[in-house]
């Protein structure tokens, strides 16, 4: 016996996450604890070869300064002292300039770029037409019979970002659901509302220059989602987002 057709339309949506590329800054307690741990480690340790060499050379220098006539050690003088080595290393470190942690995109607050907020997760939001409204949503596509919901979500991602996107989808099961009823005007007995199933994926390819994005898109962090998503939708999405 065939089941009666359900009045809900099904959608598959993809929450694409760009994982953080740099470490988050330490909290105050973490920094204090790290400093304490280093101090304790120093106290419990013994002298290393380099430190012993440094101490001996300092003593030798002191002795030489005190007894100016005692120059018999000049013959066996070491050419490079441990202190000189340390200065050399310090200079070398200062000469190296690493890439900045706060990028230009951060400063311009360019929300379409992937280089912003390198220490947080970024999610893709696209502007889609639902009913007669243009809304900011996670990319979604309607489910067609014959495919699994995961395929629907992949299709949604491909429509907005092109086929050459490399993303690792985390499993076959949906992570969340958003259920809504259509406004009374369009609601019928066969078509009461829609259920949107969310899937999660990690972005693997680091640059999307080849992706031809057709609609407006944004990459936002979890805190900035509130600026774009509606309240009910946001509540359901926040449940499955870790930050």
């Amino acid at each position, binding site marked *: 016996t065939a*089941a009666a057709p*359900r009045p*809900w339309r*099904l959608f598959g949506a993809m929450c694409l996450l760009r*994982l*953080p*590329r*740099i*470490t988050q800054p330490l*909290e105050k*307690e*973490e920094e*204090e*604890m790290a400093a*304490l741990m280093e101090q304790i480690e*120093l*106290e419990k*340790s*013994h*002298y290393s070869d380099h430190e*012993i060499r440094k101490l001996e050379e300092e003593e030798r220098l002191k002795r030489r300064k005190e007894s100016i006539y005692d120059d018999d050690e000049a013959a066996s003088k070491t050419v490079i002292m441990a202190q000189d080595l340390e200065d050399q290393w310090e200079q070398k470190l200062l000469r190296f300039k*690493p*890439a*900045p*942690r706060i*990028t230009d995109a951060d400063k311009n607050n360019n929300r379409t770029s992937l*280089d912003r907020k*390198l*220490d947080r997760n970024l999610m893709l939001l696209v502007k889609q037409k639902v009913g007669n409204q243009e809304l900011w949503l996670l990319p979604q596509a309607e489910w067609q019979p014959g495919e*699994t*919901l*995961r395929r629907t979500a992949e299709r949604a991602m491909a429509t907005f970002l092109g086929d050459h996107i490399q993303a*690792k*989808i*985390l*499993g*076959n*099961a*949906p*992570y*969340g*659901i958003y*259920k809504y009823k259509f406004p009374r005007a369009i609601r019928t007995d066969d078509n009461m509302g829609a*259920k949107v*199933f*969310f899937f999660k994926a*990690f972005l693997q390819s680091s640059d999307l220059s080849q992706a031809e994005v057709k609609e407006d898109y944004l990459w936002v962090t979890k805190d900035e989602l509130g600026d774009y998503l509606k309240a009910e939708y946001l509540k*359901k999405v926040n*449940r*499955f987002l*870790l930050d």
Partner: protein
Amino acid sequence: LCSFFFSSWMPQAVLFRGSHWQSSLLAFRASLPMRAQPKKKKKVDVKREQAQKDRMRKKIKKLEKAAPEMIPIEDFITPLKYSDSNRVRSLPPLSFEETERRVLLLKKWCLFKQKQDNAEKKAIQSLVEAQQEALKELRLESEELYQAAIRRDEELFPFERDGPNYTPPLPGYDPPEGKCVDITKVYTQ
């Protein structure tokens, strides 16, 4: 042995050998080229060789039966040169304020970590609840889609990812040339 006697005699007496088989005057005079014994029979040789081989095999078996030697863990053996007394660091003892500060900091850290852990557990709980709800709704919709959703994803594991660094990669960075020689000792049993 002949060299002593040569030096004690008068240097004029030049001595000749009788024949090339008589290598020293006082040694045994073997007029005929004599071999030690008539050639041993082949059987005895073979038996002796086999006995030798058996003994070797027994020795090898004994060695193999012995318990394998333990591989020493290099990290747990402190080299002797580090137990010298001149290596001990000489620092002033900790003041009372310092110990107090440390104890209080450890307590603050304990609280901080507890809060962090609880927040993580709550987040995971909410994640699991959201997923269960989604699966329940999906089951209401269609059994087939539900079965497809709870199937295990074989391609997910093994999952590899490079962790975050302190600074983002520098574009156009040329790392210095060099060769890395691995000198770790490898023990085989």
